[in-house]
């Protein structure tokens, strides 16, 4: 459903992504691995149209989306849970969640989505009238994920969702990811925790210094010498 083909992207004069290709099929959970500064966040931003590629193409269901503005990309069903708690600090938790369901498609299902979300994150239900900026760091992270789930995407992209969360909660999030995947949502997951990521993912890509260096299904990756040395400490 998503095809990234030979994409290069830069911030100003500094080129970050070099001829990156990737594809995600409907129903899959795919992960992007890579060290800090590899360009993972840059890649997902480029998919969402926050950054436009210098060359290459991005297609979603065979339609070019690399020139579309972000809101149109969201509209056709790609949603990003951004890295680092990009919440709306001076709005309540509830309002943040409503904004997750901003698109017309999502708005229709908002009550049902809310119910599911409050099941996964009961703490958000408790705090729904509180200003988002008064939440703890972990709670803000939960809110960001929950807000992403509100939007009923076809493709959900999550940029390091486990960052700063307690292991228990990480487990919970990964479980719910699997759940929503089973309900038909395709997932593209950016992770540094290779073990965890490969545990739930069907396939993975390895991005290093802006270049796609490796791809394969999870057992292939786990078996790879380079991965073993550099990421699994074996």
């Amino acid at each position, binding site marked *: 459903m998503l095809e990234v083909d030979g994409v290069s992207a830069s911030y100003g004069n500094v080129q970050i992504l070099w001829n990156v290709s990737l594809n995600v099929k409907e129903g899959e959970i795919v992960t992007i691995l890579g060290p800090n500064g590899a360009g993972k966040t840059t890649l997902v931003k480029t998919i969402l149209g926050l950054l436009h590629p210098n060359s290459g193409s991005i297609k979603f269901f065979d339609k070019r989306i690399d020139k579309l*503005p*972000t*809101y149109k990309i969201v509209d056709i069903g790609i949603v990003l849970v*951004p890295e680092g708690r*990009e919440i*709306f600090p001076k*709005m309540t938790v509830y309002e943040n969640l409503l904004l997750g369901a*901003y698109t017309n498609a999502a708005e229709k299902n908002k009550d049902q989505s809310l119910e599911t979300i409050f099941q996964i994150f009961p703490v958000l239900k408790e705090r729904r009238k509180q200003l988002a900026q008064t939440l703890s760091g972990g709670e803000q992270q939960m809110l960001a994920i929950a807000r992403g789930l509100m939007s009923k995407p076809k493709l959900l992209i999550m940029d390091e969702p486990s960052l700063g969360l307690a292991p228990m909660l990480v487990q919970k999030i990964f479980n719910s990811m699997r759940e929503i995947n089973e309900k038909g949502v395709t997932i593209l997951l950016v992770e540094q925790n290779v073990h965890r990521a490969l545990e739930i993912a069907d396939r993975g890509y390895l991005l290093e210094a802006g270049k796609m260096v490796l791809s394969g299904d999870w057992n292939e990756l786990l078996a790879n010498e380079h991965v073993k040395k550099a990421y699994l400490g074996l």
Partner: protein
Amino acid sequence: MPLEISLSTLVQIVIWGLINGCIYVLLASGLNLIFGVMKVVNFAHGEFMILGGYVSYWVSIYAGLNPYFSIFVSIGVIGIVGVLTERVCFRRVLGTSKLNEIVLSLGLIYVLQNAMSVLWTDKERQISSPFEFITVHFEIININMRLDLLIVIGVTVLIMAGFYILIKRTKIGRAIRATSQNRSAAMLMGINVEYMDMFSFGLGTALAATAGTLLAILFPALYPQAGAMPALKAFTIIVLGGLGSTIGAIVGGLAYGLAESSAIAILGGTWRDAIAFAILILVLVIRPTGLFGEKEA
């Protein structure tokens, strides 16, 4: 300066403060909205206010419409002018550099002032109200009040209530606030932030148009250069009330109006405008992060 001021004098001074405050609330709320969403200080805000006053002036003269109804025509016209200004001018420079944005809005001041001079000359004008000769007597405090003053307060309350509900209770209001608090996250929610810029700019200038009309009903304050001082005051108010805060602009506007009339009463009429600079400097010294600094209060 008599130190023993009677109660009714005191009440009247407070009323003048609140009435001017109403104008400032409308003006500052619009400026604040534009700043919040676009992070641009629209230095030409005062000119949109005066332009709004002129539109009402025209409508009330040529269409014979009651000036309080002509506010709505003015809101529409200036709202559209604002939307076009955003679309044609601001969108192109937004985010390029702060300096470009400042130069653009300063340039707009001169373009609008000169356009208004051509259309309406430099003569001071006042919109005449059909209730010009009606006064209302308040027995308890022994005060006669011109009916128009009460209507101005009423119109401001209505417009601000509408604005408040729009911003706090509606989907588009939520999207506006989201854009102002975190622009890239707003984009990720599927919000068309450029549309929000345009809408906010139009809404902000429409509020200014309301302020301009009410001002011109009360005072002969309609001439092309008349917007500069009120705009500076509105700017002071949003720094005072906390940039981006809707309630801050309302409370700040009323407080500023009171400060101004107290300054005239205590220090003398020549302090009327000086007080804006005094407050601005004071606030900036005490709360220097107020200006372009980040939100955290």
